[in-house]
């Protein structure tokens, strides 16, 4: 690229590239972490990264990508968040001959160059299996979704969880009627409401850790910490700490924004260097319990202090 403003690593190992990062939303720690990781990796590799934030608006994502194309980026990484697809975006990138790497979210339609992400359904299954084993007597299990209803990441996680727990006759499943909005405040409120109708829960599964942390507080406020255990997804630091401390937060599945983000940038550079790359890569999502939580905490702290 003839782009100006390659501030760092002129002629570094990554070559003189500019990579655009189109974020569907940065309104959550996970997506935010993804963006940070990509940019950190870019700096390490000596290329420029420019990121945009569509604030959860698919049309703005399209505009952002158009703006990135205008700026002459060499490749675009789309962190699509809960976005199902964006054919127009992919088409315009295709028309401009710019490679696209999807991170986290794999689009159902449209053509992309490469994808790296977690297997969300698999994480749900892991959580389900852990709970099924942890609670041999079974009981009533609550599910807190992030919403909105078209959020396929959440759908996949819940589907995975229910494929285990829902099919197990020892368990009864109650889904919270309203969405937690992926934040701790929402998780708290939804859990409070759920407890008003179902004080006899034995476990709660949340579609992400942020909500689970809020739910944990609601359970604590209701004095039910000894009765209800929690299972989340993501590996947010606070959740890891709660798990490591041996609280009623018992399991989560690592969905490492940092790892996926870094790999995503590497993948983009590989493509630009003309290497032959795998089209779809599932990034491993290890289960985190009290046994290995500390390990992951250390790793996370290393990352944050490193960048």
């Amino acid at each position, binding site marked *: 690229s003839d782009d100006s403003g390659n501030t760092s690593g002129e002629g570094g190992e990554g070559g003189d590239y500019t990579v655009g990062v189109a974020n569907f939303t*940065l*309104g*959550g*720690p996970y997506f*935010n*972490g993804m963006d*940070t990781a990509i940019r950190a990796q870019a700096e390490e590799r000596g290329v420029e990264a420019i990121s945009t934030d569509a604030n959860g608006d698919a049309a703005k994502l399209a505009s952002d990508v158009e703006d990135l194309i205008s700026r002459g980026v060499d490749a675009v990484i789309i962190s699509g968040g809960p976005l199902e697809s964006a054919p127009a975006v992919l088409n315009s990138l295709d028309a401009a001959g710019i490679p696209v790497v999807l991170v986290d979210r794999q689009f159902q339609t449209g053509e992309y160059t490469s994808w790296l992400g977690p297997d969300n359904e698999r994480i749900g299954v892991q959580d389900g299996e852990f709970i099924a084993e942890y609670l041999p007597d079974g009981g009533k299990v609550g599910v807190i*979704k992030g*919403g*909105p*209803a078209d959020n396929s990441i959440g759908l996949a996680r819940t589907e995975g969880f229910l494929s285990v727990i829902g099919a197990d006759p020892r368990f009864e499943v109650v889904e919270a*009627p*309203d*969405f937690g909005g992926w*934040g*701790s*405040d929402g998780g*708290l*409120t939804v859990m*409070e*409401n759920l*407890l*008003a*109708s179902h*004080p006899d829960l034995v476990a709660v599964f949340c579609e992400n850790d*942020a909500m689970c*942390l*809020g739910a944990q*507080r609601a359970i604590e*406020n*209701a004095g039910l910490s000894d009765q209800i255990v929690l299972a989340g997804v993501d590996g*947010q*630091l*606070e959740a890891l700490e709660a798990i490591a401390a041996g609280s009623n937060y018992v399991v989560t599945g690592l969905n490492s924004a940092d790892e996926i983000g870094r790999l995503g940038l590497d993948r983009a550079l590989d493509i630009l260097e003309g290497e032959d790359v795998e089209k779809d890569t599932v990034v491993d999502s290890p289960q985190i319990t009290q046994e290995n939580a500390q390990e992951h905490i250390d790793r996370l702290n290393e990352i944050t202090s490193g960048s």
Partner: protein
Amino acid sequence: MTSQTAPPPVEDERRTPRRQLPRLVVGGRDVTSGVGFVVALVLLVVLAAVTTENFLTEQNLTNLLRQMVTVGLLAYGMLVVILTAGIDLSVGSVVAFSGIVSAGLVADLPIPLALAVGVAAGIGFGLVNGLLIAGFDLAPFVVTLAALTTIRGLAFVYSEVPIAPEDPGFFTLGTALAGPIPVPTLIMIGVFVVGGIFLTRTPAGRAIVAIGGNRETVRLAGISVKKHLVLAYTISGTCAGLAGVILASRVGIAQPSVGVAFELDAIAACVIGGASLAGGRGSVRATLGGVIVLSLINNLLNLHGVQSFWQQVLKGLIIIAVIIVQRRSMGERA
């Protein structure tokens, strides 16, 4: 219940000659509109109590009391601003900023001080809003919309990731109970009581109400319109800061992304309570009523386990039904 900031009996007939219901007059005051509102509230409560078995449990009532705090605090501040014929769209972002800053400072400062800084941030933002609006005579909608964006950005600049203070003292404010009643709810009630007195019994409060009615008249009466506009936005900012700090303390984790669209609920509570966005009309008690109505609707739908998007559909329809009931019993526009 709806008219005490534009005080007692309002004999109103001017605009709606037809479609008139019999009016209820108690002690010389026409209380019909208040009654209509109370009727709507009671209907909702009865509906909730009869159709669900969990409504009247202590747990649920405590939830209700707790969940109305944020909207309640924001709604009082919003009412003050709406009375001046203004609007404050920035409150949701202020909630996020105040929360994350106070959570962030817990590591370095004594907890009460950290919380105070959070509230102070709200005061500061409100002050800036007010100074821009009054000083440059700008439209409140755009200024506070810009503030919504800027302050949200600042919250993320302060910390991109959520902050969960380890000191359990941080949770006290948000989770403490006084008997069966959550402390945050008491704080909210305190704000409404003191705030009600402020609006009805202090010169500054009366000036704020009057400005929304006719700012020229107020100006020519030797009252500084600018000063009181600044005061109104500062009050709103303060309430938002307080709400943010309490919310963060209650959740235990402060997120920079919290509070999106809170302003809409706050405004809705005021308007359901009969406030007019054109200014000069609105009531503290009725706004509290609006807050309760909104919370009840949510609670009712949750207890019934109505599925999320049907909840949305029904919530909208119930709000319309409530304001039609209320409108029918009121002389003026609801």
